[in-house]
């Protein structure tokens, strides 16, 4: 069963390097093969999820057996937590690639775009699957470097500036992460995550491990755009082509930021209250400041980018509460509930933020304008985009029966059960702020009077519409994950991986 794991790296990589060769001859090759690859990987992921195998799958690359109990091979590990991440990555990648078919026609060098797209997804799949720290760093760089190039894809002044800023800060993050991995290798003489966790458990508390944890939080905090480290995100995510913005905001900051951070903090290090408190404070800052900054934005995609910072704050907050409860030896049920809320919000956010960026791309495609003050009254011209945008807005602001409501509700309930009333209050308050700026967005674009300077509104092509509608349906359908039978298959295995 586990022999399908390398496919998650092999197929996107093979597609990425076939495109520049075959794409020279057949111009349609790139845009057909890319969505097909992600569809295949998505189906594989769902097939594994439904097969009901409860024990995690491990795969030794190269077939190297452990010597004297010390693992030598690079391990690929698929457990509950990585399964839901893999499925989310390939789902959003498939829809974004499908959306790109029409959207990218106005750009030149389509082949380069699809090559970079496949490389980015290969990197993210690798980060999620690998069980080896250095291998993780390599895949992280593959994903990050291709995303730098994709942000600059328009090669205009703003895109290049945003990409440069992103590269400098991303490079610093990678440096800190590499330093932390180096120190960890020095302290434990191994790079296998499971092996390191065994050794750290025997070694017990020491100062160098605390230092490594701080380095990792800073490094992955930069990648995940937590608030003191968020400066690059609004520029980078608003300058990229829209399907790439959907990938970056929906998936990339979670796969190479949030996911790795919690994988390492929960499964490799021993939880301490101080680290848990740090995460929670950063989470609250991201949630509140991201939300407040989003209100004042006049650029469609910048507003969405700030909203991403705020929503990632929710995920971190839930995880932080879970860590604080676990570190104080509190009730495991409360910690499990908080982590469940965080993971649920992580998947939900990927879906609705992907949808919102695709809507932004559709509006930009139809009118060529991103400034909220210059748009208005588009509901009459773009009824479908207006409806999907409304769905996305309601889901992200947490209005029942959309999926965002349930994940935010679980986070707030967990905060109250753990007696963090202030955190619960702030989570509810930011939810109202979110509703405020999404209503502003909805009104300024779709409902106000139609401005006269817009000469014509172009039609939205079929593939773009199709991706948007699918994500809008998912916004509603994801609420089903809260039903006990489905929750036990999808979310509970992931929670168990983190708690044990």
């Amino acid at each position, binding site marked *: 069963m586990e022999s399908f794991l390398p496919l998650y790296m092999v197929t996107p990589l093979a597609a990425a390097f076939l495109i520049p060769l075959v794409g020279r001859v057949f111009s349609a090759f790139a845009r057909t093969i890319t969505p097909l690859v992600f569809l295949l990987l998505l189906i594989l992921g769902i097939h594994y999820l439904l097969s009901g195998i409860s024990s995690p799958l491990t795969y030794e*690359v*190269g077939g190297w057996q452990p010597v004297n109990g010390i693992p030598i091979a690079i391990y690929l590990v698929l457990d509950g937590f990585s399964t839901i991440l893999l499925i989310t990555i390939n789902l959003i990648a498939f829809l974004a690639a499908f959306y790109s078919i029409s959207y990218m026609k106005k750009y030149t060098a389509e082949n380069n775009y699809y090559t970079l797209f496949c490389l980015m997804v290969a990197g993210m799949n690798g980060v999620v699957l690998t069980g080896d720290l250095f291998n993780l760093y390599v895949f992280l760089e593959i994903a990050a470097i291709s995303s730098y190039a994709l942000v600059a894809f328009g090669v205009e002044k703003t895109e290049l500036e945003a990409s440069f800023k992103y590269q400098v800060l991303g490079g610093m993050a990678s440096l800190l992460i590499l330093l932390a991995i180096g120190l960890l290798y020095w302290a434990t003489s191994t790079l296998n995550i499971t092996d390191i966790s065994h050794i750290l458990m025997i070694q017990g508390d020491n100062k160098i491990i605390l230092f490594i944890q701080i380095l990792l939080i800073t490094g992955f905090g930069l990648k995940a755009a937590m608030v003191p480290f968020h400066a690059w995100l609004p520029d980078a995510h608003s300058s990229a082509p829209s399907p790439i913005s959907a990938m970056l905001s929906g998936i990339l900051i979670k796969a190479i930021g949030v996911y790795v951070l919690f994988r390492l903090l929960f499964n490799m290090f021993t939880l301490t209250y101080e680290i848990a408190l740090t995460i929670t404070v950063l989470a609250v800052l991201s949630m509140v400041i991201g939300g407040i900054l989003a209100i004042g934005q006049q650029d469609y995609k910048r507003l969405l980018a700030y909203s991403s910072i705020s929503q990632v704050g929710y995920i971190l907050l839930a995880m932080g509460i879970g860590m604080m409860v676990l570190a104080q030896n509190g009730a495991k049920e409360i910690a499990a509930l908080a982590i469940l809320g965080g993971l649920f919000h992580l998947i939900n956010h990927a879906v609705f933020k992907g949808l919102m960026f695709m809507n932004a791309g559709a509006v930009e495609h139809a009118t060529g304008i991103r400034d909220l003050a210059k748009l208005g009254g588009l509901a009459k011209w773009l009824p479908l985009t207006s409806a999907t945008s409304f769905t996305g807005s309601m889901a992200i602001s947490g209005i029942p029966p959309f999926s965002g409501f349930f994940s935010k509700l679980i986070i707030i309930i967990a905060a109250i059960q753990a007696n963090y009333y202030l955190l619960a209050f702030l989570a509810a308050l930011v939810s109202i702020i979110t509703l405020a700026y999404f209503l502003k967005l909805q009104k300024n674009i779709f409902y106000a009077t139609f401005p006269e300077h817009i000469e014509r509104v172009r039609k939205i092509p079929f593939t773009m519409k199709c991706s948007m509608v699918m994500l809008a349906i998912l916004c509603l359908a994801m609420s089903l994950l809260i039903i006990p039978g489905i929750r036990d298959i999808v979310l509970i295995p992931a929670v168990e991986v983190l708690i044990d």
Partner: protein
Amino acid sequence: MTSIVKTVTRLVVGVIFIYGIYIILHGHLTPGGGFAGGAIIAGAFILLVLAYGSDMLKLKAKEAGSSVMESLAILAFLLMAVVAFFLGTKVFFHNYLPKGIIGDLISAGVIPLYNIAVGIEVAAALFTIFLALVIFKEESK
């Protein structure tokens, strides 16, 4: 460039090229390997372009060629890794060729083949980057 540079380049470039190939082929025996050897080979090509001037059309043709080589080298590397799925213990990246005697030039199974693929890839990639920069500079003149 002056005839001094051209003559010295003509004399030296072959030696550099052979040295790069030597480093790649001995990758499994001595320090170095695909990456280091590939960088040396790219150096030989770059030296030639620097000494013998830059005709735009020829450079563009060269860039197209080297980027095709780059993709082909990576695909060859992937193919060798994937072939392991079907041979021997059927594990990704498994070393399925006979290992030979330690210290011989032809030993260590697939590893020399991987090194050759990496060497071509690195040489082509570095040369493509160099050409892209030269073409960019020529075009913006």
